[in-house]
């Protein structure tokens, strides 16, 4: 209360009153990711502070600079189990980059400055400050001046070292001799603001680029050499390129299990060389063995790489041209379908929503997703063209993250680029984890275009149950009510929007999608679009659980069979040509083709 009382009349600070502290933390993260600077969330003690634990964990795993600043009972009551006391410093220890409890007001300024420095520098991350009430109201006129420069013994993120040029020289030796090089771009590229250097590197080398989900947007999806997302739910072309690569240049990524698939079979070529540039020493060699480790901030490292490359370029060509050709053919055959027909239930196919959204999406628009199928559809199909315009919960996979991050993102763009729209791609399951914040967007006049893809299930888990648990939809059916399992769906999202004084649009036919999106875009305030999508639609391809990057389940026959034809990727012009022809002939096969065990069963 003393804190809020103090900022009550401060016109420079915009306070967005969220309805729940977890959501305030997520909103701070949305803000931080768009701005590339600290997002702040302020909560009360005890339950208020513990509610931010999920938000801190989310920011920790996605390396977002946020600060959570919570009240605490007076210092003399700490440890006495006082009203609304909780050991939040203990609770947040494992999920923050650093946390503090301020016991002396004289240290307050120094701690704040230190915390902000820690959150923003090196590999960014969340910080937590616990501020007891007596410290909040203490007179700090005698406090020591806040130091100008922050030096923290024991905290020296390695932004550059003299070993980097030598290592980059080694990396270039591998890259210049590579036959099938691939760049793997992660979220670190965005944190380091190294997207321009990356694009220049790609334009010089003409190397195909795959990205992690956190790395979406660091290079435009429109770029001819960008193959899309890699991994568990990656595009087939990205996964194949990774399987075939003999040199992998990994930038700001941590080789998470969702990226590598089966670690024993990663990389696909057992003699492939991996060059890994990351600012976090601990990420290098953590999951995969690395041939050229480079600990550095990406921006200066890529600048050095470019300089050395330009020196070497005077000597001529690098990569065999048919590798691009194959990549290009593969990319052409793997575009987003404009599905105008409906599914078996007469409802919209999710790809249609993505197709129309792509059409209306401007380069500066921000796309935020929830977690689940909606996230994967968006990650697959949406063309994101700029860094910091794609916001999704990666490491922790927090359902309910999206809407609040979108609120934070919307506040951030209103400061920097008011023309940009914020689109939220949500599922009905995720959205029900956070829908109370509709009240926030209404009362704080925040605009988010909400697209709820309602399939009446917790779709991603249902998909797994369909594919691997004989369609036993245990605990995932959101429309199944009563012992007889009568299908009925609550809430009515349109009435819900109405209850919060917002416009709701229900879309049940493919032809209505475009108009609804346009209407939302034109509207001055938040619009809730509910798209009734085919309940049992699946996001494909996906890797088999525990499978390697080349073992995935696909919608159509040709997606799985590329290896069947050659036992490897096509490597000559003729092979490429045959491959493309065969896809064209089989293109009309549009059913769930699950190869392997299930097929034999039938």
């Amino acid at each position, binding site marked *: 209360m003393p804190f809020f009382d103090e900022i009550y009349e401060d016109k420079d600070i915009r306070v967005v009153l969220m309805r729940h502290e977890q959501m305030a933390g997520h909103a701070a993260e949305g803000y931080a990711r768009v701005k590339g600077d600290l997002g702040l969330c302020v909560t009360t003690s005890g339950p208020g502070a513990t509610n931010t634990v999920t938000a801190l964990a989310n920011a920790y795993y996605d390396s977002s600079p946020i600060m959570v600043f919570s009240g605490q009972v007076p210092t003399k009551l700490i440890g006495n189990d006082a009203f609304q006391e909780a050991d939040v410093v*203990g609770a947040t*220890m494992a999920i923050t*980059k650093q946390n503090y409890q301020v016991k002396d007001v004289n240290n307050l300024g120094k701690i704040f400055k230190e915390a902000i420095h820690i959150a923003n520098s090196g590999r960014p991350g969340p910080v937590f400050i616990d501020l007891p009430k007596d410290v909040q109201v203490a007179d700090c006129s005698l406090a020591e001046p806040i130091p100008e420069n922050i030096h923290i013994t*024991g*905290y020296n993120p390695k932004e550059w070292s003299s070993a980097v040029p030598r290592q980059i020289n080694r990396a270039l030796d591998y890259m210049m001799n590579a036959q099938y090089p691939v760049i793997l771009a992660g979220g670190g590229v965005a944190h380091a603001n190294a997207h321009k250097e990356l694009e220049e590197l790609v334009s010089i080398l003409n190397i195909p680029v795959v990205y992690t989900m956190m790395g979406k947007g660091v290079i435009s999806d429109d770029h001819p050499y960008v193959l899309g997302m890699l991994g568990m739910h990656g595009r087939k072309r990205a996964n194949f390129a990774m399987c075939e690569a003999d040199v992998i240049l990994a930038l700001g990524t941590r080789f998470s299990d969702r990226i590598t698939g089966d670690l024993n079979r990663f990389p696909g070529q057992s003699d492939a060389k991996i060059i890994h540039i990351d600012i976090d020493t*601990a990420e290098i*060699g953590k999951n995969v063995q690395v041939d050229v480790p480079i600990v550095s901030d990406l921006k200066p490292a890529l600048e050095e790489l470019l300089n050395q490359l330009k020196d070497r370029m005077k000597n001529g060509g690098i990569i065999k041209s048919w590798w691009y050709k194959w990549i290009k053919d593969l990319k052409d055959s793997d575009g987003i379908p404009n599905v105008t027909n409906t599914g078996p239930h007469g409802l919209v196919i999710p790809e249609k929503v993505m197709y129309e959204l792509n059409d209306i999406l401007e380069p500066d628009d921000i796309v935020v997703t929830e977690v689940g199928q909606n996230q994967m559809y968006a990650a697959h199909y949406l063309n994101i063209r700029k860094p910091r315009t794609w916001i999704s919960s990666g490491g922790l996979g927090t359902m309910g993250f999206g809407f609040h991050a979108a609120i934070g993102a919307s506040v951030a763009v209103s400061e920097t680029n008011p023309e940009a729209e914020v689109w939220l791609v949500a599922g009905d399951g995720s959205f029900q984890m956070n829908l109370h914040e509709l009240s926030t967007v209404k009362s704080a006049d925040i605009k988010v275009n909400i697209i709820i893809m309602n399939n009446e299930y917790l779709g991603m888990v249902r998909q797994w149950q369909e594919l691997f648990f004989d369609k036993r939809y245990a605990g995932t059916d959101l429309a199944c009510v009563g012992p007889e399992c009568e299908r009925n769906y609550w809430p009515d999202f349109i009435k819900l929007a109405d209850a919060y004084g917002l416009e709701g649009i229900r879309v049940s036919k493919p032809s209505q999608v475009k108009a609804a999106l346009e209407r939302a875009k034109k509207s001055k305030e938040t619009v809730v679009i509910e798209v009734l999508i085919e309940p049992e639609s699946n996001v494909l391809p996906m890797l088999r659980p525990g499978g390697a990057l080349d073992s995935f389940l696909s919608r159509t026959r040709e997606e799985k069979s590329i290896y069947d034809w050659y036992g490897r990727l096509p490597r000559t012009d003729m092979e490429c040509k045959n491959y493309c022809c065969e896809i064209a002939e089989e293109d009309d096969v549009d059913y769930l083709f699950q190869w392997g065990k299930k097929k034999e069963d039938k």
Partner: protein
Amino acid sequence: MSNSNYPNLSIIGLLVNDSPGVMMKITGMFARRGFNIASITVGHSERPGLSRITIGAEGDLDTIEQITKQLNKLVDVIKVQHLGLQNTTIRECALIKVIIKGHEQRQEVVSIVDLYRAKAIDVSQKYITIEVVGGPRKVDSFIDVISDIVPIREIVRSGLMAISRGKSAITLN
């Protein structure tokens, strides 16, 4: 180190801030990432405000490397070093209380104590408390030998302390 109690042991020396919660951050990191602590000792260092920790950790070299990297990431950890067993002096102190029956057994215990250059620090009619200091193998061996002669009532071991040989040191300068 060919030691039965620590088959796969590495010694890590740390210099850390002497402030509340630091031990929890360090041990919490081990717990969260599934690393094993075989032994941990803490005490003041040569500099006020900084504590010196010696951790005996178990795991292959990749695991130990990952442990040192993760420790390094903690803001309150100022220095971390994996101390190679060749160039490190390792000591442990153990206090052992044994039960004795009669004068002969006491004589026998005292002779073993002398043999190991240990010390009897408390003697009563039925009990002797012995202080033994040495490398972990010496302490283990002493316990083995003494437990053959007399029953042991209680053992308190300090855990391993390690310091590198020669000039090398884990300090701020």
